[in-house]
C-alpha cells in the first residue's frame, strides 16, 4: 500500500499568554481556525484547540475502523454515532493528554449488543489514532446498540 501524507499549517503571532494562532489543513476543509492559550485551557469561546482536533482525529478514525470491522463481520452498519472527549491534565508539572473517552451508538442490522461491543473493542484496538495517542492517554470505550436484542 502507498504511503499517505496529510499536512496542516499554523501561523502564530506573539508570545504564549497574549498571542494567537490560526490553523489550516492542506485539504482546505479547515481554514484559518483561530486559537489562543486562554481558550485552550478555559472557556473555548467558539475557538478550537489542539485537544479538540485530537478528539476529532481519534473519533473520526475509530468510526471508520468500526465501520470496517462490522463490514468484515458481514454486519455493515446503517449508522454509527461516535463521541470522543480528549482530556489534558497536569501530571508531575507537565501537561499531558491523559485520556480519550470514546462513546458509540450504533444501528446495525442483525447483530446483538454483546457482539457489537466486542467488535467495537476490536475496532478501538485496531484504530490507528487510538494506538497513536496511547503513549500518554488511556483510551476508554462505551457502546450502545440501538434496538439491540441482548444475546439475540
Amino acid at each position, binding site marked *: *500500500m502507498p*504511503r*499517505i501524507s*496529510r*499536512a*496542516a*499549517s*499554523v501561523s*502564530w*503571532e506573539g*508570545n*504564549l499568554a497574549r498571542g494567537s*494562532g490560526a490553523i489550516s*489543513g492542506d*485539504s*482546505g*476543509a*479547515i481554514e484559518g*481556525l483561530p486559537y489562543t*492559550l486562554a481558550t485552550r485551557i478555559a472557556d*473555548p469561546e*467558539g475557538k*478550537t*484547540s*489542539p*485537544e*479538540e*482536533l*485530537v*478528539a476529532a*482525529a481519534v473519533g*473520526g478514525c*475509530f468510526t*471508520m475502523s*468500526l*465501520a*470496517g470491522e*462490522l463490514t468484515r463481520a458481514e454486519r*455493515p*452498519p*446503517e*449508522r*454509527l*454515532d461516535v*463521541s*470522543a*472527549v*480528549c*482530556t489534558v*491534565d*497536569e501530571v508531575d508539572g*507537565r*501537561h*499531558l493528554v491523559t485520556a480519550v473517552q470514546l462513546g458509540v451508538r450504533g444501528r446495525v442490522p442483525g447483530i446483538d449488543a454483546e457482539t457489537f461491543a466486542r467488535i467495537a473493542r476490536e475496532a478501538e484496538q485496531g484504530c*490507528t*489514532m487510538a*494506538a*497513536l495517542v*496511547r*503513549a500518554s492517554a488511556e483510551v476508554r470505550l462505551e457502546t450502545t446498540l440501538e434496538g439491540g436484542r441482548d444475546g439475540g
Partner: protein
Amino acid sequence: MAADRRAEVKWRGDLMGGAGEIERVGSGAFAPLDVTWASRTEEPGGRTSPEELIAAAHASCFSMALAGALARAGTPPQELATSATVTFVPGTGITRSALEVTGTVPGIDESAFREAAEQAKDGCPVSGALKGNVELEVTARLASA
C-alpha cells in the same frame, strides 16, 4: 487544571462505500466536515481526514509550546509559521509526524531557535501522546537569517 475537548462523528454504511461526517465539535469552531475512506487514502478532494486533524493538532500544540519557551527565554516570537506532515501507511498505521517551523524572533540566533524548537517538540502535550508510537522530527529556521 484538566480540560476536556469533545468531537462527535457519524457514519452511514460500510467502510468503502459509506461516508462519515465530523458532525460537531464542542467549541463550534468547525464542522460538519465530510470524511470518507477514499478521501483518506487517495486524493483528499477537499475533505479532511484523521491524519490531517492530527497534523493540525500537532502543529498547533507545538507552535504554542514554542511561543511559550521563546517568551520564557526573553525572546518572544513575532511570528511562527509551522507545518506538520503526518504519514499514514495503510495496514501499518501512522509512522511519522514531521514539523517545520520558520520563526521571526528578534534577538535570537539560529542555534538557540533550533534548540527551543527541539524542546517544544519533546514537551508539547500532543507530542507526549504520540511519541514512542511515531517518529517525531522538527526542522527549524529563522525567517531573516
